[in-house]
């Protein structure tokens, strides 16, 4: 390695390390130390402390008997299995739409990114008020058009959860569409031209050209989105607050709920319960990204 030629001892003279390390390596260590300090102080310590708080078996017994925890676990699974797959399918479809070369589609893609760029709190609260049964725009519109009162959107647990998933999709769809677009743009245009000459249909082109070159990316995106969605606190908390009657909690909001009730052990235990779901996903992602 050429860099090590310039070994000199002026930078760290006197320390035992300097005998074995070259100056660039000393600098290398000095420059990585800030991150290591952050990592130790704000990742290792909190995670270790969290596990220590979650050590008592009684916490897990309490969780087992808490109907809200079971409900939150089910909600989380619904959120992940239905929410993520619907989102990724739409993103896959829209990525095909946005790679079309039309100037109005270029403009639309600029607007389309807005939900991702703006803070979630004002937009989610905007949806929350839109769905207000008495004054919300949606029900006022339903009343004007049909003369009937609209449904009480956020008061029915399954509708409220569906709305939270909708908000989540609204917020994160642009990001995944953008990523899948880069995947589509990486496919050689020659393949499509050849397929056109052979008279391939739209579906055949997707099935035999687009999908084979995108499926690895699509899978990675889906898994990554699942991990992140587990931590999506805003969509549920700001829209429903976990209500009605704590029936729309997901694991991300449940931990905070226990924290507010001063049941710190339960908060940590509920997160530990999610680890069997998270760790395989993380392991898979690490293997894919860090080769």
């Amino acid at each position, binding site marked *: 390695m050429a860099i090590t030629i310039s070994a000199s001892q002026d930078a760290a003279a006197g320390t035992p390390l300097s005998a074995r390390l070259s100056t660039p390596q000393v600098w290398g260590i000095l420059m*990585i130390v800030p991150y290591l300090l*952050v990592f130790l102080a704000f990742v290792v310590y909190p995670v270790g402390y969290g596990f220590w708080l979650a050590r008592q078996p009684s916490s897990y017994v309490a969780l087992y008997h808490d109907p809200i925890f079971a409900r939150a676990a089910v909600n989380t699974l619904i959120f992940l299995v239905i929410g993520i797959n619907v989102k990724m399918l739409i993103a896959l479809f829209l990525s095909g739409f946005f790679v079309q070369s*039309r100037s109005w589609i270029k403009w639309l893609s600029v607007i389309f990114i807005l939900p991702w760029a703006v*803070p979630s709190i004002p937009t989610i609260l905007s949806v929350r008020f839109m769905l207000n049964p008495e004054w919300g725009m949606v029900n006022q519109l339903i009343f004007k058009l049909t003369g009937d009162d609209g449904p009480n959107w956020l008061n029915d647990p399954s509708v409220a959860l569906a709305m939270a998933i909708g908000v989540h999709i609204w917020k994160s769809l642009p990001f995944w569409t953008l990523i899948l677009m880069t995947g589509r743009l990486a496919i050689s245009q020659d393949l499509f031209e050849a397929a056109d000459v052979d008279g391939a249909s739209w579906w055949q082109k997707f099935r035999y050209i687009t999908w084979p070159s995108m499926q690895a*990316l699509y899978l990675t995106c889906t898994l990554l989105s699942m991990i992140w969605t587990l931590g999506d606190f805003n969509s549920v908390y700001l829209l429903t607050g976990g209500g009605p009657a704590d029936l729309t909690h997901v694991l991300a909001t449940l931990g905070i709920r226990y924290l507010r009730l001063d049941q*710190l052990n339960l908060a940590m235990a509920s997160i530990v319960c999610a680890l069997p779901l998270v760790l395989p996903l993380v392991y898979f992602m*690490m293997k894919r*990204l860090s080769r």
Partner: protein
Amino acid sequence: MKLPTLREAGTEARLLLIGIPVFIWTMIPIYHMFVFAISPKEDAFSGKLWPSHPTLHNFEIVFFQQHYFLRDFWVQLGNSTIIAASVGALTLLIATAAAFSISRLRVPGGRIVLNLALFTYFIPAAFLAVPMYRTMGNYGLLNTSWALILAMVTIASPYAIWVLKQASDKLPVELDEAAVMDGATSLQIFRLVYVPLMMPSLVAIGTYAVLLAWNEYLYAFLLLSNDRDITLPVALGNFLAADDSPWELLMTTGFIYALPPAAIYYAFRRYMVGGLTAGAVKS
């Protein structure tokens, strides 16, 4: 100009059939927020699609802090700005140094640090929030800006290191070798060669960290609580506590708060799209 064929018109119609719903879907919550912001109170609660008397009065109330909920608007906006700027600067400093050390200086154990950072990147932020809250309490940082700044730096830097490491691996190693031949020290290489060449990625990462901190709600509301310490999103969340919340003011404030990130995003879009999406999933 020749007329479009029937087939072309059909394609165009189908594209519009997708484009129009996408536009409506994207704009509804934002439009709703905007309508509230320009509606007087009576109009806001009548569910009109466009107010009969659009007004900028709400903005006046917000800017002059003429409502109980908004009495610290400027202080809170200032907190948001200071915290976002600090998170951006600190993340850039820490992550650039770490990426340079791992990728260019090939520090021993760099690979392990990179994997640890990547692992942190995959911890769902809400899961870390509860232990982070207690940790900040133990460190005595709770209710200070530092708590939120350090927490957001912790969350932002793994991804920053990852993206910057990917980008700096692409710089030719001959550059460093040539600089070493000319007698440059590591620090000089960092300052005079590395940072200028990495500028596009650094802009992308800085923007990413600033937006992340500006938009954060969960950590902000856990770690800060005094009225004059909180960031604006926490203040917006506090509106919800009251039954008679002035929703038109809430939406106005939210609209104002959403403008800077949107502007920053569009200003740096060129860098963001290339720099961030590339690092996000591509290996």
